């Protein structure tokens, strides 16, 4: 079993690889010397938020306020997964915006569809 350690083919300072597609561009890899530590930090954040959500579900906080807390915390969790686990924070800005901006349409759909649901409920 081949086991090459520490990219010995790359003698330059930059850490990365050639994509191998038609551009064969050199793609720099984001290198964080404390990467393992930051991965576990993200894990603890996600775990604590989840436990907090399960915990407050059984308190006497009014349901409307709970819903807002849950949705905000869900978006926080989604941010940590996408930004750090999926590394989107370290991609360049054209790629970041191409991925994030289309979700404006989802916000629009949420507003329209939930309004429709409430209307249908009203008219029976």
């Amino acid at each position, binding site marked *: *079993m*081949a*086991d*090459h*350690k*520490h*990219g010995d083919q790359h003698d330059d300072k930059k*850490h*990365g*690889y050639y*994509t191998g*597609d*038609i*551009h064969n*561009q*050199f*793609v*720099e*890899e984001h*290198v964080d010397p404390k*990467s*393992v530590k930051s*991965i*576990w930090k*993200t*894990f603890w954040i996600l*775990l604590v938020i*989840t436990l907090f*959500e*399960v915990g407050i*579900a*059984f308190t006497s906080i009014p349901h409307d306020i709970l*819903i807002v807390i*849950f*949705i905000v*915390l*869900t978006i926080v969790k*989604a941010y940590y*997964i*996408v930004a750090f*686990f*999926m*590394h989107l924070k370290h*991609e*360049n800005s*054209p*790629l970041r915006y*191409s*991925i994030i901006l*289309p*979700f404006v*349409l*989802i916000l629009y*759909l*949420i507003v329209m*569809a*939930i309004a429709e*649901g*409430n209307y249908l*409920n009203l008219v029976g």
Partner: protein
Amino acid sequence: MAEATTENKPTKSVWGGGMSPFNVSWGKMYMWFFLVSDAFTFSSLLIAYGTMRHRFTEIWPKANDVFTHFPFLDGHIPLAYVGLMTFILIMSSVTMVLAVDAGHKRNNKAVAKWMLLTIIGGFMFLGSQAWEWYHFIHGTDHGAYVMPDTRVARFATDHHTHELDMNTLVFPDGTTVTGAEAEAVKAKSQLFHGANLTRNEYGHPLFGDFFFFITGFHGFHVFSGVMINIIIFINVLNGVYARRGHYEQIEKTGLYWHFVDLVWVFVFTFFYLV
């Protein structure tokens, strides 16, 4: 490797052609755009769920009354099991990102180890979901009465002890009937246990439809992810990426796997918490 060492001059526009403005390979870019489209699909499903829930808000079942089981424990234990499932999936996301990290360090053995743990986490989640489905389909021992107009009359339960009152029925709008009236309702209704696509003992049948479709669609994604992870794991064992010189394939697979975790975060909130 050496033939492509020409540096891109800073004066040249990144949109001028001849290079990727996104500074990623086409494979990674397409994985991202596939995930955007897949996120739209899941968003539409969850928004449809939200719309119908607002439509039938008064009679919509509460997840805390439906999913109350925990393996080897008796009694009314809502949210704990799905919390455990969330933990399993987050944990397998961590092992996946550790595999990607080991790939950046070109450590083939560590990549193989973390990939194997990710696959095990995926199977654990699938098993948990099968268990959850089994209990939802199987239902409670006492069941509930499905009336001719498809509304469901359930046995009244004490809010604190969760003990059943077999002589009192609760309608979806919260009104109750006891004694002879309850017997009359029972006589013209059908006792039903659990859930299928047309009725469920917990309330509106759409709740079951959305549950089966959304968690089923998500579970199928997890299953596909596990299969892809196994293929990649075999490649890692065979040293495919060590020979290639980089582990971008692990990153692309990882993107898909984290996306599955991301979707579950939303399913967890909108199906179980809210």
